[in-house]
């Protein structure tokens, strides 16, 4: 990463030395975007499908529902998890006991080949999700597990039934998996051993979304063309979007500043801070609801099984310095004081730097002379994790905790986290479903690697169990408050911050709506 910093400085110095001439920009309704990597599938469900693939599937397919829009931190438009809108569905009704949901499809909506979008297509598409292992695991979080739950009542009416009321059922229909596929076309390419056409849909599009995929070159880019017949929302302003892969940050930055690119994704906090100062450019950024970065301690092994040790570490970390050095202040802190009685999570844990308190806690824990430990982080996160690790190492040294830093490639770290053999580490993760009980269920309980602190607390486990299908708002809020108390008191993971999702673009580009999946939503963009 040091190399990259040096190179970044080189570009910055040259930019300062003389503002280069800019080339004439492309036609007004066309946009060129650059990102670090390209897609590896046109099907959101599959083994190893990368996040860049969502940029394809999100724009060439529709879903029944989509998340609304709200103003995020710093004035950027972001998705609003708690405000669902219809996309392929123009309206939907929920039965009083919330176990039956009836969707009415928009009249006149068609797929790219002109075939009408029917309730049978919706059923086939949702059947597909619960019939593929990866899709089923996701849909099960919303009590959607079997094809029998999906019924096409007539051509434009579609019903979902649930075994019981579940607050995660509707949001699941707005996530990345339940794309509405042209079932006639897909079935023509399905085989006896592949009834859901996974092989064909991986490399072909059979959708009805606002954009068609005009061309695609693996590893190089893709071209989108507007679907003029799109009826499931306001017509997109862009007629053409050229997506180019630019693997290095320097290349993304140089092409944006020269005007060969209009919009750059995957912008590091440092580049975002620099590019925001360029008069021809702007940076739209805000933290995504469920995205967070943290320091975890393995609560199942000594010395981190002692809550006093965890509190001592939390009191020793230099939060402000880490926030500035790693994130250039671009994000929402999860340290420091929290608003009282806030039932949302993640929220600031009330942590603050207090070395005297940290030393006292270590002494109380029976470790007045500190201990030796290893701090691990994943190589691909190095630009953020390295300053965090170095500052933590220095600060912990002051209370006698001697830290060795260990950088590990992503593939290896995943396997080691699975085996729960990493004592102390930096990581990043994200929950697409934003209700707080989901966050605690995934990240604070259970045997998976997502329980980053290997935390086992009977009370929290019981609370998580009890709130799963709770429909009484007061009871739910009370239980969530207790979970938040436990998280702040026991600190199995020390939440650091929610990093901003930064997208840099030319000034004329408008309508950027930051999405939970961090890819571009071309529906609203203009330029």
């Amino acid at each position, binding site marked *: 990463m040091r190399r990259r910093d040096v190179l970044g400085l080189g570009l910055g110095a*040259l930019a300062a030395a*003389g503002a280069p001439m800019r080339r004439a920009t492309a036609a007004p309704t066309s946009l060129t975007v650059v990102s670090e990597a390209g897609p*590896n*599938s046109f099907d959101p469900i599959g083994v190893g499908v990368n996040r860049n693939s969502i940029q394809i599937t999100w724009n060439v397919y529709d879903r029944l529902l989509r998340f609304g829009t709200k103003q995020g931190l710093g004035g950027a438009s972001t998705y609003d998890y708690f405000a669902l809108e219809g996309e392929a569905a123009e309206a939907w009704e929920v039965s009083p006991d919330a176990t039956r949901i009836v969707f009415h499809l928009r009249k006149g909506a068609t797929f790219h080949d002109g075939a009408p979008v029917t309730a049978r297509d919706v059923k086939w598409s949702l059947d597909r999700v619960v019939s593929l*292992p990866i899709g089923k695991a996701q849909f099960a979080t919303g009590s959607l597990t079997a094809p029998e739950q999906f019924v096409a009542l007539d051509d434009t009416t579609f019903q979902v039934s649930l075994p019981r009321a579940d607050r995660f059922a509707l949001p699941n229909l707005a996530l990345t998996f339940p794309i509405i596929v042209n079932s006639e076309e897909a079935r023509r390419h399905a085989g006896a051993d592949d009834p859901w056409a996974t092989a064909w849909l991986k490399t072909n599009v059979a959708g009805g979304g606002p954009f068609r995929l005009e061309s695609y070159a693996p590893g190089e880019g893709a071209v989108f063309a507007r679907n003029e017949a799109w009826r499931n929302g306001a017509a997109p302003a862009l007629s053409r979007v*050229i997506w180019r892969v630019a*693997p*290095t940050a320097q290349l993304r930055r140089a*092409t944006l500043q020269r005007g060969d690119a209009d919009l750059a994704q995957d912008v590091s906090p440092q580049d975002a801070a620099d590019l925001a100062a360029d008069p021809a450019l702007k940076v739209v950024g805000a933290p995504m609801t469920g995205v967070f970065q943290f320091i975890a301690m393995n609560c199942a092994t000594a010395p981190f099984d002692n809550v006093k040790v965890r509190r001592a570490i939390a009191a020793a970390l230099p939060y402000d310095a880490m926030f500035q050095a790693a994130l250039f202040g671009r994000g929402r802190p999860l340290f420091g004081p929290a608003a009282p009685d806030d039932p949302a999570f993640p929220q600031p844990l009330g942590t603050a730097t207090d070395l005297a308190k940290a030393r006292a806690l270590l002494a109380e824990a029976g470790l007045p002379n500190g201990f030796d430990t290893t701090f691990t982080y994943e190589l691909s996160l190095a630009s953020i994790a390295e300053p965090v690790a170095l500052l933590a190492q220095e600060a912990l040294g002051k209370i006698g905790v001697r830290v060795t830093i260990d950088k590990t490639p992503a*593939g290896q770290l995943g396997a080691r986290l699975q085996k729960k053999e990493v004592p102390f580490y930096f990581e990043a993760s994200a929950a697409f479903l934003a209700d707080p009980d989901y966050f605690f269920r995934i990240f604070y309980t259970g045997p998976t690697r997502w329980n980053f602190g290997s935390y086992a607390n009977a009370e929290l486990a019981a609370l998580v169990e009890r709130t799963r299908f709770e429909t009484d708002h007061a009871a739910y809020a009370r239980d969530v408050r207790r979970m938040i108390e436990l998280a702040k008191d026991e600190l199995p993971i020390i939440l650091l911050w929610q990093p901003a999702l930064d997208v840099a673009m030319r000034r004329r580009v408008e309508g950027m709506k930051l999405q939970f999946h961090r890819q571009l939503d071309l529906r609203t963009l203009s330029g």
Partner: protein
Amino acid sequence: MSAVLRRLVAVPPTLAVVVVATFALTHLLPGDPAAFFTSSPGADSSVVEATRRALGLDEPLWRQFAIYLGRLAQGDLGQSVVSGRPVLDDLARRLPASAELTLAAMAVALAVALPLGARAAARPGGWVARLGRLVAALGGATPTFVTGLCLILLFYYAAGLAPAPFGRLAPALAPPPHVTGFLLIDAVLALDGRACLDALAHLALPAATLALFAAAPLTRVAQAATAATLASDYVRAARANGLSRRRIALSYVLRNAAAPILTTAGLVFTALLGAGVLVERVFAWPGVGAYALDALIALDHSPVQGFILAMATISLLVNLAVDVTATLIDPRLRLVDHA
């Protein structure tokens, strides 16, 4: 001829060793691909197991190897998870890109290194010799991605002379029909002047970057080989007999210096083909180096195996060609081979 035959016979066993070694190495890599490819919080252990089955990693290792060999025999290099496509398709698409870049870089490097080295050997104290030392030092000491970024800064960012360094062709241009995979050749075959010029413009900076890297060892070898030949008894004899400088240079010096230069050029070529990774990254060049590196980081076994196999085959063939040519140029090598 028998020497060539014997070299050819040695190719299959070498490739067999490569196959076994790459399979063993990729499976010795630490990390669990199944866990890596299902890294979403919604995935529980049943999903990880389903992924393991889908990737064929639930079978015992000897069976995985047998399956791999069976597929290899049918010319199937497996499926890449990272790119989502068959490895053979990926390599077929990306190898020509890397080869075009490497060959162009080699051509430039040879065109610079040979005259420079020869001239420097003829006049060891002259300014050409000093220039040669500078090229050798620069090329040897500067990492390729630094050279590449400097060239982008100068010729694209500051001067605006080079096209945006995205790969091989401007996005507005339709690529010429695929014949060889070499864009320059395909464009010429299609009589597409614009595509040809654009491909050339895109090739210029990355090729120059790699050429500087390649010119360093080539200049040194050219200089050393020429110097050794010039100091030899037969050149002194030729001079004493009053042969013209031109005659000496062409029929005595060039022919005798060619063998070591050729051998080095072969080594440099194979090194460039795989080691262009950083240049490919910097210029978003869709070649094999960046492809293999991505696969390696992501624990994606098939592309790594396919890449190593392809590189080993190319290295073997290039070395074979170099050896055969060297034998033709220098008859003494035939004697060594028989010994």
